[in-house]
C-alpha cells in the first residue's frame, strides 16, 4: 500500500455545515492536538503559488497529522507567470494549466472547488459561496489580487471584454491574445499600466515585449503605447534596451511627466484619454490599481491601502494570529508580489503552522525571489534578491540583476533557466 493510499485511508474530515457545529468544535480548542477530530485543521483559501504550496507542504511534511483543506474555485489553474509567453506565442495554452489532482492523490489534501466568501474569526470558520462552511485551527489566505474600483475612470469589470486586463490568467489572457491577432494593419495597442504596488512588477513590460514580438511578425506597422502613472518601472533599463534592439520605433511610453497619471478610458468608443486628450486605439489592455483579493477584506484584516499586514517571521496577520496571509495579498515589506515570492513565503508559513499545530521543529525563516522576463526570442533577463524577517518587515539583504550588453549566449541561457524554473515551481506547487 502506497504512502498516499495510507493517508487517504485515514478518516476524512467532514464539512461543518452550520456555524453552531463550528462553535462547538472551537470551544474544545484550548489544546489543538486534543480536538475530538484528532487532527488539527488548516484551511487554505486560494490555490496559486502561495496557497497550493502551503497546502502541499503542510500535508506532505506532517504526513497526515494535519488535516488540510484547499478552497479554490478553479478546477484548472492557469499560472499568471508565463501567461505573457502564451501571448507572445512562446507557450501553448495547455502548458500553463495545472490540476489539483496530485495534491489530493499524493498528499491527501481535501480540495474544495468553491469560493470562500466570509470569515468568522471568533468561530474560526470560513463561509463558502456554495453554502457550506469550514472550521479551522489555522486559516491561510492566499487570494491574490482584486482591482480597485474607479482607479481608471471609465473602466470597470463590466467592460473587461472590451478592454481586457488579462492580469488574472484565464479567459482574459486568451481574449487579449485574440484581440492582438485581430488588430487592423498599422493599428494601435495601448496598455494602461498600474500604479505601485501591483502583482508582478516586470509583468506589464514583459507583456509589452511579447505583444511587440507578435506584432513585429504579423503587423509590423502597428504601434504600442504604454500609459504609465509611474516614474520608473522594474528592469526598466533592460526592457528599454531590448525594445530598441528588437522592436525599434514600435514602443512609446507616456510617463507621468506627459500625463500618464491622468488617464481615463471610453470603452464604447475604444478611446483612451490622456491628460484630456483622446486617442483612438484598437486594443486597450487596462491593468487597474490593485488590492488584496476580496476575502482578506471580508476577514477584516486589511489596511487602508487594501493589503493585509503580516508578521514577517510566520506570515501571520497582524490582526489575527490564527490567520496567515501569503503572496500578493500580503503587506510584507520588500518582496515583490510574484509567484516565486508567494512560493517562498508559503514554505515559511507551512513550517510555522506545522510547528504551532504539531510541535514540529521551527527553523529561522528565510525568503528569496527571482523574476525572469522574456524580451524577445532567446533574450531572457532576471532580477532577484534574498530577504530576512525583521520585526518590522521582510527586508532585502542581497540581490542581483541582469546587465545590458550581456552576450546572446548568456541571455539564451537565462531564458532556458526560466523554463527550468517554471517546471520546478509548478512541480513544487502541484505534484
Amino acid at each position, binding site marked *: 500500500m502506497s504512502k498516499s493510499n495510507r493517508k487517504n485511508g485515514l478518516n476524512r474530515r467532514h464539512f461543518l455545515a452550520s456555524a453552531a457545529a463550528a462553535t462547538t468544535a472551537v470551544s474544545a480548542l484550548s489544546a489543538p492536538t486534543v480536538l475530538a477530530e484528532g487532527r488539527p485543521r488548516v484551511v487554505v483559501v486560494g490555490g496559486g503559488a502561495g496557497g497550493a504550496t502551503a497546502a502541499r507542504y503542510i500535508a506532505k511534511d506532517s504526513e497526515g497529522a494535519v488535516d488540510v483543506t484547499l478552497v479554490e474555485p478553479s478546477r484548472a489553474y492557469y499560472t499568471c507567470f508565463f501567461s505573457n509567453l502564451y501571448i507572445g506565442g512562446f507557450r501553448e495554452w495547455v502548458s500553463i494549466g495545472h490540476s489539483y489532482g496530485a495534491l489530493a492523490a499524493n498528499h491527501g489534501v481535501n480540495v474544495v472547488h468553491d469560493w470562500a466568501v466570509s470569515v468568522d474569526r471568533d468561530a474560526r470558520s470560513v463561509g463558502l459561496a456554495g453554502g457550506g462552511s469550514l472550521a479551522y485551527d489555522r486559516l491561510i489566505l492566499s487570494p491574490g489580487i482584486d482591482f480597485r474600483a474607479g482607479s481608471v475612470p471609465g473602466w470597470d469589470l463590466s467592460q473587461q471584454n472590451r478592454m481586457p486586463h488579462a492580469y488574472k490568467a484565464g479567459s482574459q489572457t486568451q481574449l487579449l491574445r485574440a484581440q492582438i491577432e485581430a488588430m487592423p494593419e498599422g493599428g494601435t495597442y495601448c496598455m494602461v499600466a498600474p500604479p505601485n504596488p501591483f502583482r508582478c512588477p516586470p509583468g506589464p513590460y514583459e507583456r509589452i515585449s511579447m505583444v511587440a514580438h507578435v506584432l513585429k511578425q504579423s503587423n509590423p506597422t502597428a504601434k504600442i503605447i504604454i500609459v504609465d502613472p509611474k516614474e520608473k518601472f522594474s528592469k526598466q533599463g533592460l526592457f528599454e534596451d531590448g525594445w530598441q534592439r528588437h522592436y525599434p520605433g514600435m514602443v512609446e511610453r507616456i510617463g507621468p511627466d506627459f500625463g500618464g497619471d491622468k488617464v481615463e478610458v471610453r470603452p464604447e468608443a475604444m478611446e483612451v484619454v490622456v491628460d484630456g486628450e483622446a486617442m483612438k486605439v484598437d486594443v486597450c489592455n487596462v491593468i487597474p490599481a490593485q488590492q488584496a483579493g476580496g476575502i482578506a477584506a471580508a476577514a477584516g484584516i486589511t489596511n487602508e491601502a487594501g493589503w493585509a499586514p503580516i508578521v514577517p517571521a510566520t506570515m501571520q496577520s497582524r490582526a489575527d494570529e490564527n490567520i496567515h496571509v501569503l503572496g500578493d495579498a500580503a503587506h510584507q515589506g520588500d518582496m515583490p508580489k510574484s509567484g516565486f515570492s508567494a512560493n517562498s513565503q508559503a514554505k515559511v508559513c507551512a513550517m510555522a503552522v506545522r510547528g504551532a499545530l504539531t510541535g514540529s521543529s521551527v527553523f529561522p525563516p528565510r525568503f528569496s525571489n527571482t523574476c525572469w522576463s522574456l524580451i524577445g526570442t532567446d533574450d531572457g533577463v532576471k532580477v532577484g534578491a534574498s530577504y530576512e524577517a525583521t520585526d518590522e518587515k521582510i527586508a532585502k539583504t542581497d540581490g542581483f540583476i541582469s546587465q545590458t550588453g550581456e552576450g546572446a549566449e548568456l541571455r*539564451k541561457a537565462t531564458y532556458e533557466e526560466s*523554463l527550468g524554473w517554471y517546471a520546478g*515551481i509548478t*512541480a513544487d506547487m502541484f505534484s
Partner: protein
Amino acid sequence: MTAPSTASANGLRSTSPAARGRSRTAGLAACLASGLLALGLLLVLPAAGAGSDDAGRGKALFGQCKRCHQVGGGAAHRIGPHLNDVFGRTAGSLADYRYSQAMREAGAGGLIWAGATLDAFLSDPHTFVPHTRMSFDGMEGADDRAALLAWLRGFSGDHSDPSPAEPTATPEEYGLDPHILAIQGDREYGAYLAGECTTCHRTDGADEGIPSITGWPLDDFVIALQAYKHGKRVHPVMQMVTGRLSDEEIAALAAHFHRAEDDP
C-alpha cells in the same frame, strides 16, 4: 610542456549555468593537467591513433567532465558514473549507479557506448538522450570530441596499470577547509532549507534548464555550494542563495538532497 590553456572553455556550444561555472575553472584544469604531465603520469595513456599532443588535449578537455566523472585507477561514481571501460558498456547499465530513467531506457533499447555513439552524445547530450540528467550542453568541435574520446579510450579495455583516477572537484581546488567536509548535516534542517532550492530544482531529479541536484555524493554537493558561496563558481542566483548559507546549512542541504529521491 604545458596543456593548451584555452581548450576547455572553447569547445562549449552554449553556456548553461553549470557550463559557465566550469569554464571559469578552465585555467585550473589546465594547471592540474600540466602538473600531472610534469609527473609523467600521462605516459601510460595514449590509445592507438592518438598522438601525445592529442592526448594532452583530451586530458585537458576532460577538465569539463571531471567535476562529475572520474576515470582511472580507483575511479568511483560521483555525480556521474565512472568512465572506466565506458567503451563497450551498455548505456545505463552499471548496477551501483543511479541513472536517469532516460539513460536506463536508452540502454534497454540497445544503446552501447562506442566511438560513434559517444561522439554523438557528447555533441548534444540532450538531443541524443532526451531527459538525460547530465548537466552539459555539448561539445561543439569535432576535433575536441575526437581528442577527448581518444584519451578516454585509454581507460577502456586492458588497463592493468592505469594512472590513478583524477578526483572530481577537490577541496584543495577551492582552498576548502577539510573540517567543512567533515560536518555532519542535519537532514531535518536540510529538508526545510531545501524549500529555497525546490522553487527551481526539481526533487524528482528532472533536469530541464536547471540542473538536477539530487543523489549527489555529499562531498561534491558541499564543494559545489562552497564554490558558489566564495565566488569560485559564477552564477548570480546560486551566489546569492549560497552567500547566506552557513557551513552547517550547506552540510544539511547535502544530507537532504543526497537522499531526496528515496524519501521525497
